[in-house]
């Protein structure tokens, strides 16, 4: 059994094919079991992923320390490992689950955005395109205003609205396997109608009810606990392996429908898997935190620019999304005089980011 670890998959390696330069500029290969098993990765993606992961760990630590109830750094470990007293309770029951929920929701929204952006071949792709967010909002606001739902029932009502809308848009948009422009147009149309429903419900609601509904609509991580974290971890266990398969399909889908099919991809099935995965991911994120804006849009683009590879990677997008949302939540909690819902902060940051993107692309051309 031989394992040529870290061999550059390049014709420039000694004894290789003798062609000048490297064949796979950024690829590394690990071969095991006499070549029956082989894995390929980009060193830069691994470095970016590791750095972002370290940043996430640092931010979690910061989240445990900061707040009205000060927990000094040297007491954090004790508090985490079960020390009695207020510090332990604050860290274990409030701050840690909230930070983990932020990471999970950010990752879920980012994966969803990465999938939509590749599917519609547009950096402005996001779950709003397929009407999911508007459907979830209408579902949640209807739940709050008409029935007075809270907690898990509210999340279910939002999910129902979102998934129903996504399925309807998908069925209306798919013609001869054509995603893209048609999907966007149908999604925008149905989304606009659902927004009208949401606003109509809000105008009819009592003031206090309307306020509750509005906080949900902005997106917030207030009072997130261990049950939310459990849901997110469960989603990771189920959707993670699917994402591995989807990642391979994604690299073909971005070459155009004809090339993808000529290379042996079952396009219809792959597209359905990708859309279903994207909807499932955003559904989990929205069920926990509401429709937090801009993470799905921004995180994949940031990840792509950091990795500098072709296409959008699901793993790096997830990590960047996780860090972005946790950072936004820390800013929203601790910088303004009174804490803001995280959705306000991501909205602000997202606007700044889009401006920067326009400026940069304007300069390049």
């Amino acid at each position, binding site marked *: 059994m031989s394992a040529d670890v870290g061999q550059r*998959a390049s*014709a420039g390696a000694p004894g*290789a*094919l003798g*062609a*000048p*330069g*490297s*064949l*796979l*500029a*950024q*690829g590394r*290969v690990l*071969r095991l079991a006499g*070549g*029956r*098993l*082989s*894995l*390929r990765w980009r060193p830069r993606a691994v470095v970016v992923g590791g750095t972002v992961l370290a940043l996430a760990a640092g931010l979690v630590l910061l989240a445990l320390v900061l707040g009205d109830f000060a927990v000094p750094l040297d007491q954090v470990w004790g508090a985490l490992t079960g020390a009695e007293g207020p510090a332990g309770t604050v860290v274990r029951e409030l701050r840690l689950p909230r930070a983990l929920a932020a990471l999970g929701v950010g990752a879920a929204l980012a994966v969803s955005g990465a999938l939509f952006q590749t599917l519609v*071949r547009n950096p402005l792709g996001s779950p709003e395109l397929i009407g999911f967010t508007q459907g979830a909002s209408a579902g949640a606001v209807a739940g709050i205003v008409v029935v007075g739902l809270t907690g898990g029932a509210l999340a279910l009502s939002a999910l129902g609205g979102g998934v129903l809308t996504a399925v309807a848009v998908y069925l209306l948009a798919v013609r*001869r396997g054509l995603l893209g422009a048609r999907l966007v147009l149908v999604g925008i149309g149905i989304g606009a109608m659902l927004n009208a429903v949401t606003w109509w419900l809000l105008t009819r609601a009592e003031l206090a009810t309307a306020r509750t509904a509005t906080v949900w609509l902005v997106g917030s991580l207030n009072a997130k606990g261990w049950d939310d974290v459990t849901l997110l971890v469960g989603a990771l266990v189920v959707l993670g392996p699917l994402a*591995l*398969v989807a990642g*391979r399909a994604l*690299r*073909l889908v*971005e*070459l*155009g*429908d*004809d*090339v993808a*099919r*000529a*290379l*042996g*991809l*079952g396009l219809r099935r792959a597209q359905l898997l990708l859309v279903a995965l994207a909807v499932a991911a955003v559904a989990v994120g929205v069920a926990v935190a509401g429709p937090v804006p801009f993470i799905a849009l921004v995180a994949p683009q940031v990840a792509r620019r950091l990795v*500098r*590879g*072709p*296409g959008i990677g699901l793993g790096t997008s997830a990590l960047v999304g996780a860090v972005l949302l946790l950072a936004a939540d820390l800013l929203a909690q601790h910088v303004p005089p009174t804490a803001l819902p995280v959705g306000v902060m991501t909205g602000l940051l997202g606007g700044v980011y889009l401006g920067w993107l326009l400026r940069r692309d304007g300069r390049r051309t």
Partner: protein
Amino acid sequence: MTHHLVASDLTLAYDRRVVIENLDLAVPPESFTVVVGPNACGKSTLLRGLARLLAPRSGAVLLDGRAVHTMATREVARRIGLLPQSALAPDQISVADLVARGRYPHQSLLRQWSAADEVAVATAMALTDVTDLADRPVDELSGGQRQRVWLALVLAQETPVLLLDEPTTFLDIAHQVEVLDLLADLHEQGRTLVAVLHDLNQAARYATHLVVMTHGAIAAQGPPGEVLTAALVAEVFGLPCRVVPDPVTGTPMVVPEARVRVR
């Protein structure tokens, strides 16, 4: 091993619009078959049908006697390669990375990059003369270079049959000849090629088997020297012309009659 690609009683349609009806075509094994015909005669549609991108309304496309639409799509992808007109390169992808994606039908989740993959990609890039461009982003290449890169992707797929939909479109004449010479080389190495071309004289020069289509049917087929006559061009394209021997190759050369006589 030679491969037999056959369209049998094939009807192809987009929704209700029937483009090709009850067509029979046996692609001669190891031939360089070129399909020509006026715009909208169904030649690209036929190629899409052969590449199983379009499911037959009736009839079948058979590869060595088996209907390609009933075969596993990856299995077909290891035998038939396609260079379509609508290929998209992701932003910033390097030449080597793009060519490497042609290996998909030979890979799996646990077998992402074998030694055979490496050899196939290196060989494909050498054949198409893009090895020196390996690290360059595809967006920065000229049209001719880009077409050679896409061809390298299809070659990396290592299929005995290659289908090419207007491989010379958008190229200047020098690059057209370059691509066609490359295809002729591939044919000489034993591959079966089916290409849709616009230029009748190029078709006559390079084809070993010429298929002339009109209105979704085959008007004539055979060696270019026998098929391409002034009468056929007048009938199929509605173009009065003379057919003279190509001064370089001796193959038929179509020279349109002048609309206004030169005084």
